């Protein structure tokens, strides 16, 4: 009879914490994998225009990025509100684009130097004059493969 008698009161079983490190590591790995490293901090506004006929820009080692747009609010009083180019971590003028491309190109492996693509991350509100100037500079240094980086979306979002 007493075999099924309920245990009375007392000591709660101790929950093992041996697996806690595993869980923590798991989370750590997850965030390590899922986070995209941004190698340069953005100093310009960068809301990309939308397009839907896009191609993926795989292979990050073959891409160099040129940012352009209005300086973000933190830099506005120092650099004004006219659209500017950002190369790596600093603002640049159009004439510096060529030197930047050449420096980037020489920093890549030999076999990649001819297949580099320039990704233009330009804010939607920028005027085409600046973009055309960048394109001219790229032509001068023979960096002809170009990618206008966009958001994926209907083109009608660009029209307002």
């Amino acid at each position, binding site marked *: 009879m*007493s075999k099924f*008698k309920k*245990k*009375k009161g*007392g000591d709660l*079983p101790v*929950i*093992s914490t*041996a*697996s806690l490190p*595993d*869980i923590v*590591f*798991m989370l750590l*790995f*997850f965030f390590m*994998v*899922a986070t*995209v490293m941004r190698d340069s901090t953005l100093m310009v506004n960068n809301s990309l*225009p*939308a*397009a*839907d*006929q*896009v*191609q*993926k*820009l*795989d*292979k990050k080692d073959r*891409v160099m990025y040129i940012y352009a747009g209005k300086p973000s609010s933190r830099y506005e009083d120092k650099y004004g509100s006219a659209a500017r180019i950002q190369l790596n971590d600093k603002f640049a003028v159009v004439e510096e684009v060529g030197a930047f491309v050449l420096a980037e190109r020489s920093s890549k492996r030999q076999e990649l130097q001819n297949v580099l693509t320039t990704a233009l*991350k*330009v*804010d*939607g*509100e*920028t*005027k*085409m*004059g600046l*973009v*055309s100037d960048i*394109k*001219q500079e*790229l*032509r*001068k240094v*023979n*960096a*002809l*493969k*170009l*990618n*206008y*980086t*966009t958001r*994926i979306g209907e*083109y009608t979002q*660009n*029209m307002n």
Partner: protein
Amino acid sequence: MAKRSAPEVNAGSMADIAFLLLIFFLVTTTIETDSGLNRKLPPIEEIIDPPIIKQKNIFTVVVNKNNQLLVEEELTDISDVRTLAMKFLDNGGGTGEDSCDYCQGKKASSSSDNPEKAVISLKNDRETSYKVYIAVQNELVAAYNELRNREYLRLNPMNGMNFVQANSRYSDPRTSIDEKEKLKPQLNIVKSMYPQKLSEAEPNKN
């Protein structure tokens, strides 16, 4: 009866569960990749002897500083650009060796001879806004893509994908070499049927 404490839960398999979850997330998360419109700039060398192109083979798109569109000298809304460009490219009005047997257009003599001769010329102002320019580019690329899709599906009905899908599959590094070898000639045929001839004039200075 002696008082017993509950047996301790075996935590040995916890690590396995943790790894299972870790692998699950590893497989399912995709790192965000950039995407955009790929274009190629013309080399800067001066062309000594520029080829003469007939006016009817040129489709002019002009975007002015107020972001208005002028397509073939007419004020147009951006939503019509795709259909107009497709009509122009697919016209196939040429005769003799210029004729185009796969074109489904109206064969009007005032429009392009065949897609290989048809050139789209895009001109913008320095004051044009970038996002409008991208929208126009997008619509012009879309016109090419729609025609290429149509021809790709007609030539390769068994593949179960259109030109754009096949192209992205071709450029995907995970695709096997065998499949790439198979896709390459198919893609090249369609590309040569509707070559992307999109010329960009240097913008107006003012």
